[in-house]
């Protein structure tokens, strides 16, 4: 099996052991590629991970913490081949991550995303509701990860309808028009989790509209909803009850690994696509943890060619529930993301807080 096979085979159809064998060869090759082209990566791999040039399993591969992409522009292509530099949206005051893309990597990302989405959407473009304002992508100067995510998804639909106006208020009459036109057959919906909840579900909760033919794909994290004590299960139940939406898929992904997103199965767990994987590591020693234990998520992807982002240690906690479990017909690792590593304050003589406030 090759990477090409992993792409072409139906997603989630490769057993974990087979996938690991292909990924190990592919990611080792990618590692060599990045060692040759990125002096920074070569230095990190050699010094931080001595002996990793000949890895025996996926956990042996050198991994970079995602925060490193905030401090360093890591590139494996000459400047002339840079197609674009992606930036994470990053909350105010935070340095954004910067990710260097060449055409090859960008194309791979597009292809990969389409392979993943086709697994739930089918081969045809569906009419599409975007729980977003059209303003988001109108101004290309403010091109951020949210806009990039949206643009990436546009390809999977047709007859795009932006359900929110520039004040993020619901455009109810137009939405009703859309449903009259397309509501009787499968249609696609996409939005950021919190917007879907606060700007779409909440105003529509008692409207009695029928979204039973909709397929909702949403992402962006649960932090804000957790603050409102809304769990993933609450979210699904509420949408089912109020809107008749039964096909709801969350996905987990990041700007540092665009394209290889982890899409929810019908069992509510996330699954890596064929060409990606997750490893859970101990949050203090970073050694690989057995399934069932909570730790820091490392995400692996065979896509990144133009930057050394094929093995990344995230700042998210997660747990692998099962491997090759047939509970929703998908093979591979079934996992959940449990949120960010909680902030910690170490003691010391230097009064960091006072320094920040004053």
């Amino acid at each position, binding site marked *: 099996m090759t990477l090409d096979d992993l792409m072409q085979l139906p997603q989630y159809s490769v057993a974990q052991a087979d996938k690991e064998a292909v990924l190990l060869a592919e990611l080792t090759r990618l590692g060599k590629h990045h060692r040759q082209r990125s002096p920074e990566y070569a*230095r990190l791999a050699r010094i931080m991970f001595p002996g990793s040039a000949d890895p025996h399993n996926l956990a042996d591969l050198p991994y970079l913490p995602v925060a490193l992409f905030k401090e360093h522009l890591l590139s494996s292509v000459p400047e002339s081949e840079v197609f674009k530099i992606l930036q994470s949206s990053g909350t105010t005051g935070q340095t954004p991550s910067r990710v260097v893309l060449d055409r090859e990597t960008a194309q791979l990302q597009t292809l990969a995303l389409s392979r993943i989405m086709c697994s739930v959407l089918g081969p045809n473009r569906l009419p599409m509701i975007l729980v977003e304002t059209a303003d988001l992508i109108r101004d290309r100067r403010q091109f951020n990860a949210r806009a990039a995510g949206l643009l990436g998804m546009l390809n999977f639909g047709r007859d795009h309808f932006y359900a929110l106006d520039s004040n993020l208020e619901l455009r109810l009459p137009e939405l009703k028009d859309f449903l009259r036109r397309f509501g009787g057959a499968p249609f696609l919906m996409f939005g950021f989790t919190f917007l879907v909840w606060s700007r779409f579900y909440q105003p529509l909760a008692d409207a009695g509209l029928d979204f039973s033919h909709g397929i909702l794909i949403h992402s962006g994290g649960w932090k804000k909803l957790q603050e409102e004590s809304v769990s993933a299960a609450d979210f699904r139940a509420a949408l089912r009850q109020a809107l008749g939406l039964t096909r709801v898929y969350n996905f987990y992904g990041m700007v540092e690994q665009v394209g290889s997103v982890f899409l929810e199965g019908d069992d509510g767990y996330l699954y890596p696509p064929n060409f990606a994987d997750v490893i859970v590591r101990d949050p*203090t020693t970073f050694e690989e943890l057995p399934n069932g234990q909570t730790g820091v998520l490392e995400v692996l992807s065979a896509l990144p060619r133009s930057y050394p982002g094929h093995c990344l240690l995230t700042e998210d906690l997660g747990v692998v529930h099962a491997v090759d479990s047939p509970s929703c017909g998908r093979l591979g690792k079934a996992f959940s993301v449990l949120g960010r590593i909680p902030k910690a304050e*170490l003691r010391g003589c230097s009064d960091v807080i006072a320094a920040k406030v*004053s």
Partner: protein
Amino acid sequence: MELEELPVHLRGSAAAEPFHESVVNAAIDLSQRTFRDPEARGYPELLALAYWMRKAEIVRLAAQFRTLQLDNRILAPRGLVFHLPPRNVDTIFVYSWLLAALTGNRSVIRLSPQRSESTNILLRLLRETLAAAAEPASSGTTIVSYGHDVEPTEILSGLCDARVIWGGDQTVDTIRRTPLPPHAKEVTFPDRYSLSAIRADTYADLPEEKRDYLADQFFNDSFWFDQLACSSPRLVVWCGTAVETRAASADFFHRVAGCVERRRYLLPPAASMQKLVYACSAILNSPVEECRRYKGLTVLTLDSLSGFKRSHPGGGLFFEAHLEDLLHLPEFLGRRDQTLTWFGFTSEELHALVRKLNGRAVDRIVPIGQALQFHRFWDGYDLLQEFCRCVYIESAFQDARPTGASG
């Protein structure tokens, strides 16, 4: 108490005689209360503090103070000392408070409204001690608590005779914008950096158990405050030949890693992540030639100390470097460097180092294991004298006329 009442309250009490019985007894009482307190037992830093304030130590300080009193120079309290301790080192304010109080000063201590559990315990014990103390100790200390408001700092600064600022460069900078009375002095504790130096050949001669002991002492110096105390070592300089130092370092850090594991030192995940990111960045930004990762301990070997940046994530990350001779160290040190903990050098070598530094760097040179032991000599100050004015007396009356002046 309302803000407006503070000045009246603070002006109302007088300074005590240095080492007044009531203050000495209060200090010893606070030490004993801390030792006995079931809650305080869970906090090693509180026990260290209690140990430092035990009777024998106070008696020793009193004796040292007496030797500072000369026939023609008397040390007298400055008056009111305003202490601004850092928010995140729980107990440090007690050290400057105690030395100010013992030398007869009244104190006003500003605590942050957000306090750690150990600070709250200490505060309770201090209040109980003061309530039980005799005068003038009982009314000589006032504790105030406020956030980042400027007004109380202005009022208290205007009243005080000495101000003590803990908490690093930016805090010092911020508080300094509030003026002091012209006569008042300031004692500041800015950001500092500390390091260790080990002579490799002496280390190699140590028997096993002494190496373990040294590693254990080094562990205490470093990990007690997550390596963020200003006197905790962050850089280890090995002196000797390349072969000697390499072997000594491998042996030593292996033992330190053993301590980390035995003592179950656990860093919060966010701090572990920060440490990993820091290590990666350091590899990209500085001449790191090797990285050794043990559980809870990371060692980055530097090719050279030139241009060495003194940022640090804390939590068990050490830089190390190799020098042929300790006397090559001064060119890499600067004002920010505070404590040098050492092993294996002779007194002559250490004195030669200080003479060569000539005040440019390093305020404290102590054996490995004593990094965190607070002392009257700290950050280049003698705190037993800092809170005193030197009064000069010439008591011999000269009855002879000056010769030559009248011509």
